């Protein structure tokens, strides 16, 4: 177990290092940061002063060491756009994305698991075929378009939900639905197929034969054994959403999370804020990955952690 934690932590560090190095290289070497960040009409003196302020006049390897040292202290510098420490902005926006992810994926789980089980009870039946087709449809609809349709329908036509922002609890309904629906579709397909496999196992027949109630056999015995792939998918969806895929939903609904901030930072060429956001996203991914490994171990004690 100790060895496992150690290895996972080392791998996590490698991932975070890799991401920061890529961001460093992309922002310093591919484009000239000063050219990107300052307006075209700035004078040479302004450019030189700006370079000095960011330490860009020093050799690249010293810049790199400095950059890494600052990351360890979680100090990325001041955001060029908002004129305050980039990490402060990230810590302010991250909870909003986490909230959106939790509500959206929570909703997907609550709906998808019963739906998948019901479909799996009679594979090939009418309910099953409708479920599969609806999930395929859900997988095929682009998320941003779904969001826009929701706005037209609920905000403009029926006027029951606010269009954008995050002022009241009602504001989260549409973004969370939009975020959750593709997840829901993937989850239904997976719950269905793993439950079909599980329900064909001998132990299910034994449990029925010895007279266990239906709900207990399907809902506890079979579902628990089908749980591992389902957990994997849910974890993966959470990772995806925190790793930047929330950008689309947040842009459509102007949800003030980390994704919208990332897009705004990219639009404003605020490389410092971008670096902070990507670093945070990488840390989130690594932390959730390690957490998921422990959850696997809890669900299935037979798993050997290597």
């Amino acid at each position: 177990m100790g060895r496992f934690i150690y290895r996972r932590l080392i791998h996590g560090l490698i991932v975070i290092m890799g991401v920061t190095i890529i961001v460093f290289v992309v922002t310093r070497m591919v484009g000239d940061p000063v050219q990107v960040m300052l307006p075209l009409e700035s004078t040479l003196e302004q450019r030189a002063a700006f370079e000095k302020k960011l330490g860009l006049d020093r050799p690249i390897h010293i810049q790199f060491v400095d950059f890494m040292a600052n990351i360890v202290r979680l100090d990325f510098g001041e955001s060029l756009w908002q004129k305050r420490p980039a990490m402060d902005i990230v810590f302010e926006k991250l909870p909003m994305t986490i909230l959106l992810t939790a509500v959206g994926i929570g909703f997907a789980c609550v709906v998808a698991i019963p739906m998948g089980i019901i479909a799996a009870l009679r594979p090939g039946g009418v309910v099953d075929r409708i479920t599969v087709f609806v999930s395929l449809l859900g997988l095929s609809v682009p998320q941003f378009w779904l969001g826009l349709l929701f706005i037209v329908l609920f905000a403009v036509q029926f006027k029951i939900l606010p269009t954008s922002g995050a002022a009241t609890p009602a504001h989260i309904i549409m973004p969370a639905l939009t975020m959750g629906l593709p997840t829901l579709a993937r989850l239904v397909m997976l719950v269905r197929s793993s439950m079909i496999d599980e329900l064909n196992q001998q132990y299910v027949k034994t449990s029925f034969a010895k007279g266990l109630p239906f709900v207990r056999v399907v809902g506890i015995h079979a579902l628990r054994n089908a749980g591992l792939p389902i957990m994997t998918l849910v974890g993966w969806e959470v990772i995806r959403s925190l790793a930047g895929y929330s950008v689309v939903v947040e842009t459509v609904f102007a949800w003030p999370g980390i994704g919208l901030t990332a897009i705004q930072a990219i639009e404003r060429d605020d490389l410092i804020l971008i670096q902070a956001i990507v670093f945070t996203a990488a840390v989130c991914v690594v932390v959730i990955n390690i957490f998921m490994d422990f959850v696997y171990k809890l669900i299935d004690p037979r798993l050997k952690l290597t």
Partner: protein
Amino acid sequence: MSQTNADSLEQALEQHRHEWVEKLFELGRELKRDKAGLVGVMLITALVLMAVFAPYIAPHDPTDQDLTARLAPPVWYEKGTLKHILGTDHLGRDVLSRTIHGARVSLWVGAAVVLLAGGFGVVMGLMAGYLGGRTDAFVMRWVDTQVAFPGLLLALIILAVIGPSLTTVVVVLALNGWMVYGRMTRSAVLSIRQSPYVEAAEVVGCRWPRVIFRHILPNLTSPLLTLGILEFARIVLAEAALSFLGLGIQPPATSWGLDVAMGKNYMFMAWWLVTIPGCAIAVTVLAINLVASWLRLISDPQEREKQFARHMAGAMRKKMHATIKKELEAP
């Protein structure tokens, strides 16, 4: 002697061709049994034809502006005209023509990314699985590390810094998506590298590139094909999302995602600007998904067996009903 040799060769070729055609027909027959798959294949064929012949089908040039007919509604509205069947956008460009031309970008990006990412991933997976040892360790570490990257964010930044264009979108999406192929190929290679035909090839003295490309790769065709098609659907959605965010295809080029983004500002006055390109994306991806799920069914022996059993049961039931009916009618 040589004459007969050539004859027999021709005969063999003929037979081979015959088998090939026969197989194609069998695939067609099987397709007829799966209605969803058939619809998917037909839709995709139509889309590909539409993309290839876009300039001949589209009634207008997709970038032609007609400022006197801005935001014209589709033809079934009172103000709609036959000139613009699906209406026009805020610059008076024909929505139908833009949608037809948009298919080009989506399918082109999808195909290019699947080929690039798939090619690289499959080669990496083959090498990792067959050579094992350090190569395997290196490739798999690389895959694990890159899978844990916040892919979309990195893609957005790289696109913003390098400058978005068709080429950069393809390259960035390919860099982001090759890992799936690598993982799957590797695990498939591990399971068949001990099989007799691989060992036979080794004993005969084939070098490893020949073993992996001539002997192992052809046997991975069907799972890789299914994965490639699923990835194609994902890439079409990803390209649309990137273009929607303004970091994908740039105007004056046309893309469905771009059109939705532009239509967003006129959403409340002109619903067709958002709805029509969005529907185009959804239909395309749905068609690809239908084909993928059909392919998965027919390439899985267990599923085929089930389907065959279901088919036979259905036929028997029909026969039984017919005999019962006959007996009832003629006592």
